[in-house]
């Protein structure tokens, strides 16, 4: 059992699902585990346990880690996920990596399976918790879950007594809504752009790190008159000094693993209007795949 203080790395966006060619944030998480071959368990709940997301996780971590995943949707179908005693398995990890997707759906499913309590215990034991997007929002007391302008205030697990906003650069509406909510009385908190990780020890922000030069994060609090006040945080770039962000890995194929691809916002090979991905601005910075980083499924079964 890791005997250290609680740690969380909350990503505004980034990591293996969004930055295929850029390992910096994931490497940073693994380093926190302080073990040569850390045990890393993936929770893809927020994506509905999307198969291709699970595949991508193993592709990234199985060479250097003891990698596993827990699926809450296909526990009777032998998909290779942990099935027996999930709590015990999670509490034996060095890192629990939570994938992106819909944070409200994820929290609902976690609570139904008692994982909220398990994750709190894992955190208290010093198991490193991390994740992008929904995998960041969930650790905070309050968060903004935003979809195409319809922002929603969400109660998270509350391990960190702040509010949180992700994809702060990629989705201007989020920033607007978060500032408004904080101005209206949502508790103060932290906003992170894609590529930024907020590293907490206990409930204190230890440092902000990034996989992209120039990526920013902010402390956001009420300005006192219904407005919000942003204070930029010092963000430590994890790459070598002077390197340019050529390798930032713009995702043009979020449907990895199931032969479907998305280019320039067009859903390809998918005639049924199930294109989940958001428009990716061609050539721009990594456009956040929202809280749902390219969720697609391949399984089709109706087993209650």
């Amino acid at each position, binding site marked *: 059992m890791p005997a250290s203080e609680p740690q969380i790395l909350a990503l505004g966006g980034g990591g293996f699902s969004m930055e295929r060619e850029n390992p910096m944030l994931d490497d940073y998480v693994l380093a926190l585990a302080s073990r040569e071959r850390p045990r890393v368990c993936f929770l893809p709940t927020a994506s509905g346990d999307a198969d291709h997301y699970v595949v991508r996780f193993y592709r990234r971590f199985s060479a250097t880690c003891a990698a596993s995943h827990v699926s809450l*949707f296909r526990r009777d179908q032998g998909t290779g996920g942990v099935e027996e005693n999930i709590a015990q398995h999670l509490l034996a990890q060095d890192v629990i990596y939570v994938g992106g997707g819909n944070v409200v759906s994820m929290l609902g499913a976690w609570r139904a399976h008692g994982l909220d309590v398990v994750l709190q215990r894992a955190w208290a034991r010093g198991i490193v918790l991390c994740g992008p997007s929904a995998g960041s929002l969930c650790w905070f007391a309050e968060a903004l879950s935003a979809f195409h302008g319809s922002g929603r205030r969400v109660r998270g697990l509350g391990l960190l007594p702040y509010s949180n906003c992700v994809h702060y650069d990629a989705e201007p509406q989020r920033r607007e809504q978060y500032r408004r909510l904080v101005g209206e009385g949502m508790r103060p908190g932290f906003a992170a752009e894609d590529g930024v990780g907020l590293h907490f020890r206990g409930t204190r922000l230890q440092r902000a790190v990034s996989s992209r030069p120039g990526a920013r994060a902010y402390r956001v609090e009420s300005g006192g008159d219904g407005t919000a006040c942003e204070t930029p945080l010092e963000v430590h770039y994890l790459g070598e000094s002077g390197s340019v962000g050529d390798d930032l890995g713009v995702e043009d194929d979020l449907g990895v693993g199931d032969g479907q691809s998305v280019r320039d916002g067009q859903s390809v090979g998918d005639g049924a209007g199930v294109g989940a991905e958001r428009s990716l601005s061609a050539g721009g910075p990594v456009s956040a795949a929202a809280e749902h980083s390219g969720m697609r499924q391949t399984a089709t079964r109706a087993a209650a």
Partner: protein
Amino acid sequence: MSLAAEVPPERRTIFAMGGGGFTMEPANPLLDDYVLSLARSPRPRLLFLPTASGDTTGQINAFYARFAGRPCEAQHLSLFRLAELRRPLAETVLDQDVVYAGGGSLRNLLALWRAHGLDELLVRAWRHGTVLAGLSAGAMCWFQGGVTRSDGAPAPLAGLGLLRGSLTVHADGEPERLPVWLAAVRAGELPGGWALDDGVGLLFRGERLARVVSSRPGAGGQRVDAIAGELVRRRLEPELLGAAATPAPLDDDVQELRRVQRLRARAPRRL
């Protein structure tokens, strides 16, 4: 939003299938056509909820494959990809003639619906005349309880309770479910109710069971109640839909999956 007036209780409609429909019977449209025939409109707005599966692309594609060429306006709703929605959630749900819930994990279906307030919207829609349909988890959810395999081994679980009684599904296809349900009914953990084979559907008008239909000859079901600690079982005799049609066997994949599941269920690690 064009929300119709509340309909009288006896016109509130639920169609609950033990299995079948587009995800399980790709070659047999009888149950799905029956679902459409229940709608108040000749060209109904039909919303598919794949929640219980985790919104798998496979289920969603199968839905459109079935309904795209039929007289309806088909749409799906993913609670994992709400960004796809063109209108707010409430507006989308309350504007339907039929809501069709897919199979998967009953526990997750209920948790997700509740997390998004969809359970209350569906009750409202039902009271306003929207037909609620579904199979498996998407059928048991409307009752007071069912038997879920959300955690691997079959276990009783409470549902939304729009219909009195409990339901268990796949009585023929997944036989390990039935004894768990019977034991729960006998012990009073679940109220009495219905056990349905794949291909069998119950039509409720209000709380009243109005019709029992089936897409396959030989498929059946039973009504079971616990009376003074004893189980009283009555066989159901479904009407075969489209009597002229030839029966379609279960999809090969489904059969194989079930063989695997049965083997797994027999493995010693199970309780």
